[in-house]
């Protein structure tokens, strides 16, 4: 039995990093991720971890130093938010392409401009095609659990891909919540010792990373990355099951909440899924068969499982906390609808872009989505595929 505590999301993540005790952490503070770096640097100063903590002058350097440490054979981590992730951009792609198992908590925050410190998913959604695995967390407990599992997923020999563990800025990062921590030795046994098979400091087996790779082999390397993402699906499930045995909290690609007998459903990621659960409970009391699918794994996108779960519903609403400017809705919507396309019995799907720049989302907003969804289910058609929830037009 773990220890029941009250921590903010950032404290929970920093505590997971303390238990992981990475060889190297290189990080630069940015709101709302700052606490993670602050707490972790006190663990370093107090000798609670053996980590080499590298204070860098920017996020580009943070990601570069983390990449360098990981390429040298270390277990390396960093953390960021928003414009910090944007500044890392070049190296984010290189880390994935080097197949380095870096784990990076991303505390989701809107991108500038206008400048805004609050939550939306535009930062990590922008990195959705960078080759990183992405896990999203509903609360501090899931952020903690996801960071620990991310190590195992990233370092698996069939995967070797970096992982972003996303949690909602302020809503989760700065909110004190109840959670259960695992004992240090259990976490250490779960993640095991890291031994890289291919690393630059292996002088007996010299190798090159980042060599020039033109039309002769570049394509094959990208194909291998895509294959690693396919392999990640099995590993994510295996690790989620094993973590369940350890903690009593099993993880999959998504959580189904009152979904099995639902007629209409919502698909959402992050903290809003928790608020949506309260909305579902209220609607169920009124006899409305509302259900919820909380997506945890956005990369790889579990399209087969989503298709199997959502086909047969009368109507589905997606909530996107990011704008893609495609004029066809947010990233979750376009991918989900693409997964359902051509499937017999596929429900009509509507997108609600919401909560940009931290705009509050209440139970009543989500109930409105379900009521709108009832109308769509009755008619079988959409008024418009994309709605901007609660925005002043």
């Amino acid at each position, binding site marked *: 039995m773990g220890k*029941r*505590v*009250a921590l*903010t999301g950032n404290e929970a993540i920093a505590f997971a990093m303390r238990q992981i005790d990475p060889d190297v952490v290189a990080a630069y503070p940015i709101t*709302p991720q700052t606490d993670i770096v602050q707490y972790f640097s006190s663990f370093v100063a107090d000798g609670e971890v053996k980590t080499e903590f590298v204070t860098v002058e920017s996020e580009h350097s943070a990601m570069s130093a983390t990449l360098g440490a990981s390429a040298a054979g270390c277990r390396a981590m960093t953390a960021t938010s928003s414009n910090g992730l944007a500044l890392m951009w070049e190296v984010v792609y290189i880390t994935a392409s080097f197949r380095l198992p870096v784990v990076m908590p991303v505390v989701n925050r809107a991108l500038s401009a206008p400048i805004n*410190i*609050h939550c939306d998913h535009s930062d990590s959604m922008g990195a959705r095609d960078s080759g990183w695995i992405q896990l999203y967390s*509903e*609360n501090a407990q899931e952020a903690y659990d996801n960071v620990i599992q991310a190590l195992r997923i990233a370092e698996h020999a069939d995967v070797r891909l970096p992982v972003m563990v996303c949690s*909602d800025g*302020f*809503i*989760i990062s*700065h*909110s*004190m*919540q*109840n959670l259960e921590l695992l004992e240090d030795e259990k976490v250490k046994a779960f993640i095991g010792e890291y031994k890289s098979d291919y690393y630059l400091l292996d002088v007996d087996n010299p190798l090159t990373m980042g060599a020039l790779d033109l039309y002769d082999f570049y394509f094959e390397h990208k194909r291998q990355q895509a294959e690693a993402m396919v392999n990640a699906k099995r590993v994510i499930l295996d690790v989620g099951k094993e973590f369940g045995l350890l903690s009593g909290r099993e993880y999959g690609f998504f959580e189904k909440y009152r979904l099995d007998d639902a007629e209409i459903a919502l698909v959402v990621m992050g*903290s*809003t899924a*928790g*608020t949506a*659960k*309260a909305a579902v409970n209220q609607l169920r009391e009124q006899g409305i068969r509302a259900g919820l699918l909380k997506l945890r794994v956005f990369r790889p996108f579990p399209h087969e499982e989503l298709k199997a779960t959502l086909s047969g519903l009368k109507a589905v609403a997606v909530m996107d906390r990011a704008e893609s400017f495609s004029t066809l809705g947010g990233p979750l919507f376009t991918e989900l609808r693409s997964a359902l396309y051509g499937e017999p019995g596929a429900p009509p799907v509507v997108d609600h872009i919401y909560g940009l720049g931290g705009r*509050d*989302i*209440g*139970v009543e907003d989500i109930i409105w989505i379900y009521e709108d969804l009832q109308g769509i289910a009755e008619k079988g058609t959409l008024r418009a595929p994309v709605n901007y929830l609660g925005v002043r037009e």
Partner: protein
Amino acid sequence: MARLVEIRWHGRGGQGVKTAALLLAEAVAAAGKFIQGFPEYGPERMGAPVLAFNRISDEPITIHSHVKEPGVVVVMDPTLIGSVDVTEGLPEDGVIVINTSESPQKIRGKLGLCGRKVYTVDASQIALGTLGQAIPNTPMMGALIRATGLIGFDRFMDLVQGLLAEKFKSKPEVIKGNLQAIERAYQEVTGE
């Protein structure tokens, strides 16, 4: 206790509003409650009006939206009255606890408030006497516990003592003053 209690804290930057909300959350969590504690983040600076919130329940809390209709409001700085609508969303059976030297009756008149329960305590004066500075956040916790009965006072004091001992390892001299401040505010708060 009701199934879910929502609390809104009003104060000014530097008065320890966030600390109070988080400390309360931590203490009642240690007593087995389900909790949330979070400040509102905006353009804070010393002296500017700030907010913090709690949710406290006997059941797990999944809602992550703002608190719009708090059953309990705590006002750490009486000069906010008139410039900030401290009673906004306070329901008919709501409770408001205010740091002021004035009586509940007088404050009720100032707020133009009918119904609801109004409690007052001179937390700044208590803090001056016990801590040597007018930081009213810990005494207001004592007044809040008295006004709401969230958890038993002795249990609360035990838990807060443990938490303060942890937080102030490097300056243990402030622990005693804070505990005295909480106790005095608990004793001195009056309501109608």
